[in-house]
C-alpha cells in the first residue's frame, strides 16, 4: 500500500485510452464502474477535444456483481459495435473489473464481431499510464502488422541509396492523445523530414487507423519520438520487419542536428544542406550578451525520463545553466536517467512520490525548476520560477499556438519558455544596487511577471525558503539585529540561500551570533 497525495501517472487503462483516442476507427470497451468515466474529461477538458473519447464503459454496479457482469460486458461490446461501427475493437478491464476476473478478451471473442478485437491486459495494481499506452500500442501493432510479417529468413528488400523511383519513408511512432505537445512535435518533425526528402509513411498512434498499422512494415525505418510509448512496438518491428529505429529524441539544437544526421544515414540522403542552414535562434540568443545572466543558474529538472534527460542536456549545454537535480517518475527508464545524472554530476531521483520530489527541490534551492504541473505547484509554494517540460499535463499545456518541444522550432520554444520566468539580467542588478527603492522593495518579483506572483512568492518565501533549517547547527545560532536587517535588503529570490549559507558558514566557524561581518564573510566564502 502506498500513500499518495498526487500521482504523476494515471492507471494503465488511461494509457490505453490515450492510444484509442489518438487513433481513427478504434473503439475501446472498458469493463469498469461508473466512476471511471471521469477519464473522459481528461480528453474533452484538458486537451479540449471536440469529440468524446471512443470508449464505452460497462458501468457495472454493486448489484451486478453477484451474477451477470460478464453478460453486461458482452451486451456492451455488441451495443458499442452496433452504435459506433468501428474498424477495430479494443477490450479490457480497469482496476475494479480486474478483481472480478471476467476475461474481457474471451467474452468479446464470443460475440463474434465482424471486426478484429484486440484484448489488452493491463495489470492495474502493478503498472501505470505510460506502460499501459506502450502495451496497448504494441498489442495493436502486433495484431495488425503481424499478418504481414515476412517468413523468417526472407531477405529485407531495402531501398537502394540513390533509388529515384521513390523517396525514403519512415514511420513516426509514439504520439498519443493527451501527450505533452505531441500534436506540435509531429507537425515539426514531419516538416523537418520533408525538407530532408524523407516521406512520413505512417504516424501512429496519433491519427492512424488499424489499416495504417497494417502498413507499418512497408516503411524503410522507424522514428521513435516517445520511447515511453513506442519503444516496445519499435523493437518488435525491428525484430520482425528488420526496420532500424532512430532513437535520438530531437529536443534541443544539438539533439535535433544528431537526429537529422541519423535519419539521413538510415534514409541514404544528404543531411549537409539542412544542417548547413541557420535553423534555430537558440544558439545566437544563448550567445548574445544579454543571456550572460543565465550563466550558472541553478536548475532542477524532473519529468518523464525522455523529457527530463533532454531538458537537463539542453539546460547545461545550450543555455549554460547548472543542473542541480535530475529525476523522473518513469521507473522503466531508471537506467537511462541514472546515466544522465552521472553526466551532470548529480544524484538521480527516481520516484513517483511527490513528497520526495518536493523535498529534493527544497534541498537543492534551485533558481529555476523544469518539471511537470506537480513541480509547478511545488515551485509556486517555494517562490521559485518554473517552466513545464513534461506530462502530466494541464489545460495550459495545450496552447492555441504552435509550440513544439522538438526540432529547431522546439528549441526556440524551450529558450523562450525557460528564460521567461527568470528575472531579467539588468533588473536583477538594479534590484541589488538600489535595495531601498520603494518599488524595488525586498519582495519585488520580476517586473514582467505581474503582481500576483509577488504575494505568492512572499508567503512561500516566508514559510519555507527563509525559514531557519531545523538542524543541530541552527539551534544555537542567533542573528544580530543589524545582520537580520542587512539580510532583509537581499532580494527575496536569493535571501533564503543567503540565510542558509550564512548559517552553515557560522556553524562551520563555531560562531554563536551572526553579525553583518559574518554575512559578508559567508558571501566571500561561498563566492563562486
Amino acid at each position: 500500500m502506498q500513500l499518495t497525495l498526487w500521482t504523476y501517472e494515471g492507471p494503465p487503462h488511461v494509457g490505453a485510452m490515450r492510444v484509442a483516442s489518438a487513433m481513427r476507427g478504434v473503439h475501446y470497451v472498458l469493463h469498469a464502474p461508473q466512476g471511471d468515466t471521469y477519464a473522459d474529461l481528461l480528453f474533452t477538458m484538458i486537451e479540449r477535444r471536440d469529440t468524446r473519447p471512443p470508449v464505452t464503459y460497462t458501468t457495472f454496479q454493486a448489484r451486478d456483481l453477484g451474477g451477470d457482469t460478464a453478460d453486461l460486458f458482452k451486451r456492451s461490446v455488441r451495443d458499442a459495435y452496433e452504435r459506433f461501427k468501428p474498424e477495430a475493437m479494443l477490450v479490457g478491464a480497469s482496476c475494479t473489473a480486474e478483481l472480478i476476473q471476467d476475461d474481457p478478451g474471451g467474452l468479446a471473442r464470443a460475440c463474434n464481431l465482424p471486426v478484429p478485437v484486440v484484448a489488452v491486459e493491463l495489470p492495474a495494481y502493478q503498472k501505470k499510464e505510460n506502460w499501459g499506452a506502450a502495451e496497448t500500442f504494441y498489442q495493436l501493432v502486433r495484431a495488425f502488422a503481424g499478418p504481414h510479417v515476412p517468413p523468417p529468413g526472407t531477405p529485407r528488400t531495402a531501398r537502394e541509396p540513390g533509388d529515384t523511383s521513390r523517396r525514403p519513408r519512415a514511420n513516426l511512432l509514439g504520439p498519443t492523445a493527451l501527450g505533452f505537445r505531441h500534436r506540435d512535435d509531429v507537425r515539426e518533425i514531419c516538416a523537418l523530414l520533408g525538407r530532408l526528402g524523407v516521406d512520413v509513411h505512417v504516424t501512429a498512434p496519433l491519427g492512424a487507423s488499424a489499416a495504417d498499422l497494417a502498413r507499418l512494415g512497408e516503411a524503410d525505418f522507424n522514428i521513435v519520438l516517445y520511447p515511453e510509448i513506442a519503444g516496445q512496438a519499435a523493437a518488435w518491428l525491428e525484430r520482425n520487419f528488420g526496420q532500424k529505429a532512430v532513437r535520438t529524441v530531437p529536443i534541443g539544437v544539438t539533439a535535433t542536428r544528431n537526429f537529422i544526421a541519423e535519419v539521413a544515414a538510415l534514409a541514404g540522403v544528404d543531411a549537409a544542406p539542412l544542417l548547413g542552414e541557420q535553423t534555430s535562434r537558440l544558439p545566437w540568443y544563448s550567445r548574445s550578451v544579454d543571456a550572460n545572466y543565465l550563466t550558472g543558474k541553478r536548475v532542477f529538472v524532473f519529468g518523464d525520463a525522455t523529457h527530463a534527460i533532454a531538458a537537463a542536456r539542453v539546460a547545461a549545454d545550450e543555455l549554460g545553466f547548472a543542473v542541480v537535480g535530475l529525476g523522473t517518475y518513469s521507473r522503466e527508464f531508471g537506467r537511462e536517467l541514472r546515466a544522465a545524472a552521472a553526466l551532470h554530476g548529480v544524484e538521480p531521483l527516481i520516484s513517483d512520490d511527490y513528497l520526495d520530489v518536493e523535498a529534493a527541490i527544497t534541498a537543492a534551492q534551485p533558481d529555476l525548476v523544469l518539471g511537470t504541473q506537480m513541480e509547478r505547484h511545488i515551485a509556486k509554494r517555494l517562490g521559485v520560477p518554473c517552466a513545464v517540460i513534461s506530462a502530466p499535463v494541464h489545460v495550459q499545456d495545450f496552447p492555441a499556438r504552435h509550440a513544439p518541444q522538438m526540432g529547431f522550432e522546439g528549441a526556440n520554444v524551450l529558450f523562450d519558455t525557460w528564460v521567461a520566468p527568470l528575472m531579467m539580467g539588468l533588473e536583477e542588478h538594479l534590484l541589488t544596487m538600489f535595495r531601498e527603492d520603494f518599488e524595488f522593495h525586498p519582495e519585488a518579483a520580476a517586473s514582467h511577471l505581474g503582481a500576483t506572483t509577488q504575494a505568492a512568492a512572499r508567503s512561500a518565501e516566508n514559510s519555507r525558503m527563509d525559514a531557519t533549517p531545523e538542524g543541530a547547527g541552527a539551534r544555537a545560532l542567533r542573528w544580530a539585529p543589524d545582520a537580520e536587517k542587512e539580510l532583509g535588503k537581499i532580494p527575496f529570490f536569493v535571501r533564503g540561500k543567503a540565510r542558509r549559507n550564512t548559517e552553515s558558514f557560522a556553524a562551520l566557524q563555531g560562531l554563536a551570533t551572526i553579525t553583518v561581518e559574518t554575512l559578508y564573510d559567508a558571501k566571500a566564502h561561498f563566492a563562486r
Partner: protein
Amino acid sequence: MTIAALLPEIPGCGAAPRIAASDAGRATVTTAEVTTAKVTTAKVTTERGQREVFCGLTGIVWLHRKMQDAFFLVVGSRTCAHLIQSAAGVMIFAEPRFATAIMEERDLAGLADMNDELDRVVTQLVARRPDIKLLFLVGSCPSEVIKLDLGRAAQRLSRRMMPDVRVLSYSGSGIETTFTEGEDACLASLVPELPAQAPDAAPSLLVAGALAEAVEDQFSKLFAGLGIARVAYLPPRRACNLPAVGPNTRVLLAQPFLAGTARALQERGAALLTAPFPLGAEGTTEWLRAAATAFGVNADRFETVTALPAQRARQAVARTGARLAGKKIFFFPDSQLELPLARFAAREMGMQIEEIGTPYLHRQHLAPELALLGDDVRIVEGQDVDRQLDRCRAARPDLTVCGLGLANPLEAEGLATKWSIELLFTPIQGYEQASDLAGLFARPLARRELLKV
C-alpha cells in the same frame, strides 16, 4: 401555506431503492408512474445503460475544504487517486487534506496483510499531519469488491489514536454511490458521532448539506430574524465542533442528495422537515417557511423577514435571466440537483424543460419539487448516455446542463452547455445567490452572442 404541507406522504416511496432498480435489463426502458396524491403526476422514466457520472469519491474535493481539521484517506487504486486529482483540477491551492492509500499487487496477493498496511499508512499520515483531528477512511470500488472492512479498521485505529484523532469510514465507491452520494455517505458516517441533545433541550434547527460559508452566514441571519436562535450546520466548519442531535432537533436539508444522512438523523430522533430546496427566490422562501412553520413563527414576522430579500432576488433574477425566457433546457444526470435547478429555471426564468436527467430520484425528499414542476415534465432516472445524447441532439435545446466529459463535444456540435459541476462548486443557495445562479445559466448564451468568431 407551505408547499410541503400540501403534500401527503407518497405511498410506497418510503423505502425507495438506493439505485434505481430495473429488472428489464440494460438499455431497456421501463416507465414508472409516481403519484403524488392530488397535487401532481410526474412521469418518471427509469433508464439503464452506460452512466457518465462521477463516483462518490468526488465529494472529497469540496468536503476537504469545508471541514478544516478533517482528512480523507481513500483506500483504493491508482484510478481513485487520479480521479480525485483530475476532478480537483485547478483547485490545488495548498497541500491537500486528502490522499489515497494505493493498493498494490502484494496487498491483493495476500503477501502483505492489508490491515497492517493500512495501519502503517495511517501512522505515516498522522505523523506528517499532526493537525488532523478527524480522519475518514473512504472505501472505493476495489476495496468494496475485495470486502476490506474499513468500518472495523476505523474502530481499531480510533481506539489506538483517540483522543488525538477520531477515525470514521464511509464508502465513496462508484459501484454503490454516484457523485454527491459521497457527501451523503460522509455526513451519514458523522451522525452517530454527534453528541446527544438533552431530552429537555429547546427545539433546534439542523441544516444538513455542505454550503458555502457565506451562504451559511446569510441563512443564520435570516433564521435569527425569524427568531430561530439555535441553528447548527452539518458538516460543521471544524469537525471537532459537531452539533448535538436529539428528538428536539428539526432537520432541514440544504441539498437534495442526503437520503442516508436524513435517515440516520431520524434514527437519532430528529424530525425531518420537507421543503423545496433553497434555490431561487421561491425555493429559498419555501425552504425558510418550512423552518418557520416548524418553529411556530407567525406569518407577519415571516413576511417581514423574507419579503424584502425575496423581492430583491426576484428582481435580480429577472434582470440576469431575461434572455433565458422561453429557451429550452436539457439536464443530463449529475449531482441530483437537477430537479430543483430545473424548477428554478422553469418557474423563475421561464425556461422550457426538455428533459431532466437525474442519477437517482429520492421521491420523498423531492416531492415538493415534483409538485412545483407539474406533471408534463420528462424526468429520467438513471442513464444510458448514448440514448440520452440522441434525445438531446434531437431536441436541440438552447442550453444543456451536463458533466465535463460531454460539454465540449456538445459545444462542438453547436449546442450551448453549462458544466453541472460548476453549479455544485458555486454558492447558489439563498436569496442573494439567486441571480448568480441565473447568471450561470445565462452566461453560455451571452457568450455566444458576444463572440464574432
